[in-house]
């Protein structure tokens, strides 16, 4: 088990390093002069050169990369070129906000989609099954900004029951905070519902078709016991992995939803950094997102092997 986790951790570190190289390279392609774009077209060439020297953007790319990576490894993400403040506190605040939003989204979507997928599997081929499958398929295809504007139009304006902006007034209670997060969270959940419900359905169908479920039924166990005690545990195993890998997707969706609902999260931070050509902020944001995704996948692998004795007691793999 320890070897398994160590191996996965090693692979994650290599992947993270590759992401850093790749993020750095794609940003190095940025056209133009960093000092010039900060100071504007009227600044003197010497002032631009001095600023470039201070920022270190006149150094060779390899030196810049080394300095940046050394900083990141020590937890120093540099200073934002746009806001002139350290990047790290900005990243941590934004990440905390995004986690709150993602948490609400997960709390909504995971139970709903598991129940939906299970019902569909139990009534295979029925109208309920087809309804859930088609709904899931459709929801997972619609971009979040579309779901978002429809939600805003219906719940924010016509029915006027939910706030349009996700940013709450300072000092408001947890109830009000959740209320503000509800609409963006639902917009995020649409896509996830389709994926998770589909996996849960497939897992349940496979489990119900297995020998041990047939044995349990033939033994005369009540249907409820068969489903909950025997089928459910095995059916949900692959779903756990899907839920964790969807976290990566969720962060992508956050970019759109946070902009639409005006919420100060990591997605909006990355978008603003990209729009303003704020290199340290953009690099830091991309690294954090990559790290979060890798951690989530790692957690899913570990959880999966803990829940599945065949892997836990098997070889290192």
């Amino acid at each position, binding site marked *: 088990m320890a070897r398994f986790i160590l191996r996965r951790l090693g692979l994650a570190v290599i992947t993270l390093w*590759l*992401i850093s190289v790749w993020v750095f390279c794609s940003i190095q392609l940025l*056209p133009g002069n960093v000092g010039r774009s900060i100071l504007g077209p009227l600044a003197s060439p010497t002032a631009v050169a001095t600023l470039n020297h201070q920022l270190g953007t006149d150094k060779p790319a390899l030196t810049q990369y080394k300095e940046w990576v050394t900083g990141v490894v020590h937890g120093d993400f540099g200073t934002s070129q746009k806001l002139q403040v350290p990047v790290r506190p900005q990243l941590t605040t934004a990440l905390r906000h995004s986690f709150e939003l993602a948490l609400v989204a997960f709390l909504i979507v995971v139970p709903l989609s598991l129940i939906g997928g299970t019902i569909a599997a139990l009534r295979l081929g029925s109208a309920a099954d087809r309804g859930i499958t088609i709904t899931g398929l459709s929801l997972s295809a619609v971009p979040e900004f579309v779901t978002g*504007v*429809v939600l805003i139009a219906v719940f924010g304006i016509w029915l006027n029951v939910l706030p349009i902006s996700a940013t709450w007034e300072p000092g408001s209670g947890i109830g009000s905070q959740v209320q503000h997060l509800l609409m963006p969270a639902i917009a995020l959940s649409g896509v996830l519902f389709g994926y998770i419900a589909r996996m849960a359905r497939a897992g349940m169908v496979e489990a119900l078709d297995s020998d041990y479920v047939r044995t349990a039924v033939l033994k005369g166990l009540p249907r409820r016991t068969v489903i909950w005690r025997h089928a459910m545990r095995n059916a949900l195993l692959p779903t756990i992995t899907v839920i964790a890998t969807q976290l990566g997707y969720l962060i992508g969706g956050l970019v759109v939803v946070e902009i639409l609902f005006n919420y100060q999260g990591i997605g909006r931070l990355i978008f603003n950094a990209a729009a303003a050509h704020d290199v340290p902020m953009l690099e830091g944001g991309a690294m954090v997102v990559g790290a979060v995704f890798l951690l989530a996948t790692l957690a899913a692998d570990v959880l999966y092997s803990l829940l599945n004795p065949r892997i836990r007691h098997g070889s290192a793999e």
Partner: protein
Amino acid sequence: MSTVDVAAPRSALSIQRRETLRAFTRSKTFLAGAAIVGFWILCAIFQARFFQNPNGLSVHILEGPSGSHWFGTDRNGRDVFARVIAGARDILVIAPAATLLGTVCGTALGLVMGYFRGIVDDVLGRLVDAVLSLPVVIVALLAIVSVGPSKKTTILVVGFVFAPLIARTVRTAVLVERDLEYVSAARLRNERAPYILFVEILPNVLQPVIVEFTVRLGYAIFTVATLSFLGFGIPPPSSDWGVQVADHYQYLPGGFAWWPTLFPGLAIASLVIGVSLLADGVSQVLER
């Protein structure tokens, strides 16, 4: 298997093809999807001939739906109905082009990874993992920030991001094929690797590739629309739906003007749902 194939008359193959075709026409999901997608393709082709100019300006700014403007007018006085009808044009070129690019590159990558295994597979596999660890939207943002948004960049970037995803699927299929007899036979005949990959193995992994293409097409539309909404996809003068929503969602609060946002939004929803129904139909028929 290969000896039987040589002896089998051509008609067996055509019967099989006809069977597949019939399965398509019987699949309700496929037909529903095809109808929706077909509708938008027709709109894109015949828009210029039958409807108003989508870029025609007027003094009627942000007017609600009426007899003369069925879906109202937008902030530049343009007819929203005409723009919704014309909105499918760019995305119906860009998304398939990007998917095609991604499928071609991804298939080649997957063939190489699955066939050679070993160090090639390990190194390429790590690279694929690195690309897939960042959400598509963020990868696209990083790339488009560097070169600036345009239709061509959008195709290249989305194609580039999709290639590793398709490579994974193809690799899995190749891993099964490479141990079969016809591949060993080709190797014994001393065929070169490119021949074995593209002439021997490729036709046998074509089915998952086709399924993957249709599934990815839905994601491509999703991604291109999202990028356009963010201002990093199709550039503004276009009547693209994502651009329309981006331009007008600020008028939603206070119930000021919902029509220039909601109608293009629903249009995107219908197209992506159509494509995903189509994809679901294709995978049901081909993966029976």
